[in-house]
């Protein structure tokens, strides 16, 4: 069963067609990747799916519910959590606190609870701290827990953003170019963590530039070019797909047809 389905999803920016009628089915439990050259419309697609950007036409369904016009915070509350191409860390908060914010959706309580601190609230705060600790261990950042998040090297900031998103207990995790700016060694570690997350039952939708990484870890790939979906299939099928090769090598369409 598909966890996420888009039907003819389209986005126009004035005259520019950023996404043109994209149909996509992300099966439950899959590690799905969307690849494409720069400016292919990958991030636009992501922003529409996560509710950060309104679509021009088409529909999006998540977990059996139409979310095309649902506000962003409700989409997040349904279990669709995204990360950003440019890391959006919470400056001025420690590494652990960043992950604790990630627990926002999985917890409750507002001003009154914070002032009166009933027993359930105190218990929840302890659980939040424990959960943050576990997640930092999972991504290998527990030694940096009390450090100001801004002070982390870039590669670790990426891992922190991942831990933070996991704290929200997502059903579908949207990762926007998580390996951007990482070196080979860091990319290796990240790939391993993404695979582990997927193996634990979280569906992952990944936008990536690094084709080598994607063909290695994804079990299904869709390729965008100039706002259109030009191919979809298993990594092997994609690697052999003439249009994909053309898009990536910059060959004129139809030249090798």
């Amino acid at each position, binding site marked *: 069963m598909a966890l996420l389905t888009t039907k003819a999803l389209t986005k126009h920016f004035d005259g520019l067609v950023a996404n043109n009628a994209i149909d996509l089915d992300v099966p439950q439990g899959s590690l799905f990747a969307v690849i494409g050259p720069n400016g292919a419309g990958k991030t636009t697609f992501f922003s529409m799916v996560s509710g950060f950007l309104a679509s021009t036409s088409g529909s999006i369904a998540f977990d059996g519910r139409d979310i095309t016009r649902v506000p962003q915070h409700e989409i997040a509350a349904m279990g669709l959590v995204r*990360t950003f191409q440019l890391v959006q860390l919470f400056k*001025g908060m420690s590494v652990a606190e960043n992950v604790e914010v990630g627990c926002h959706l999985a917890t409750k309580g507002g001003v009154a609870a914070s002032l009166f601190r009933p027993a359930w609230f105190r218990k929840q705060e302890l659980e939040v*701290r424990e959960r943050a600790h576990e997640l930092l261990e999972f991504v290998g950042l527990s030694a940096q827990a009390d450090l100001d998040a801004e002070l982390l090297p870039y590669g670790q900031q990426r891992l922190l953003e991942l831990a933070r998103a996991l704290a929200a207990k997502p059903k579908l995790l949207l990762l926007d170019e998580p390996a951007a700016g990482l070196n080979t060694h860091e990319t290796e570690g990240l790939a391993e963590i993404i695979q582990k997350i997927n193996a634990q039952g979280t569906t992952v939708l990944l936008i990536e530039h690094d084709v080598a990484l994607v063909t290695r870890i994804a079990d299904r790939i869709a390729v965008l070019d100039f706002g259109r979906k030009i191919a979809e299939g298993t990594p092997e099928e994609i690697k052999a797909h003439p249009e994909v090769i053309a898009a990536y090598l910059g060959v004129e369409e139809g030249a090798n047809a």
Partner: protein
Amino acid sequence: MTSPAITSAKPAAKFASRFDRFQIGLLALAGLSVAGTLMYGGYLLTVMQLAMIYGVFCIGLNFFMGYTGQASFGQNAFACIGGYGTAILCVQYGWEPVLALIASMVIAGFFALIIGYPTLRLRGHYLAMATFSLGLITYDISIQWTSVTQGYMGYAGIPPLGIGSFTIDSERWKLVALAVLLMFSFWLSLRMRDSRFGRGLRAIAGSESGAAALGVRVPRFKLIAFVVAALYASAAGSLFAHTVGFISPEVYGPQMAVMTFTMLFVGGVGTIVGPIIGAVVTSLLQEVVRGSGHFQDIAYAVVLLATLIYAPKGLSALGALFRRKKEA
């Protein structure tokens, strides 16, 4: 499962990361200056009383400007509501000061809610302009609506704080009471800061889209922070009225916005002890430069500029300098 030893150690580590020793030292210094003032007496008593009141105001302002990272130059509007609310209720209707203070807070909070709802859609400079004009409008109303505010004449004879027949008349005890109230507001602010709510606010300051992606309802949280700041401002406005016994529009005018802004930045915007430190330091400094008469505003501007350039995170963040040196 983590072992009990680890779970019990973590909150302690949390506390340490919240306050560094430098900040605790600053707080102790502020406490000492209050104690010194109590012994020395005289005019300093009034100065420190006002420092405590502005401290309450700045703790609230810090919620909105510091933790949530939004600009407001108009919180004096809510101090104005608090001041006039309490003055009118006590002088015209003979209310108990404490009840009048609380009732004024409710009114101020309500206004913050309905003003904040449309205003907080604005960001950055636009929000700063909108809130600044809110302060100006309130100031104008307090001058022009003479049937209610008595215009420039203001209100005199506002009773001091107290409960029933017990009133705090002595200047020394007023300072003690205000210091206790300041510590109480500080404690409340810490409870709010270190919670799901407070983390949500600070996440908004760090990255609005990042917070939204994790399900923080950004507009709602901003609005609540604005209301919290307004409640603190209103309480401070009322405390001023009960402490000094007299209010006029000038007390809550644009000057107040400039002064509290200076205090917050001198102390350290977004830091925990910054509002208190800034209020005490700036109030004392004010007395030092008072001799310069009309140059007082210039002195403010110089202090503010120097802070923004040389200590952008304020006095309370200077501890980091020492730490970095030690580590190097």
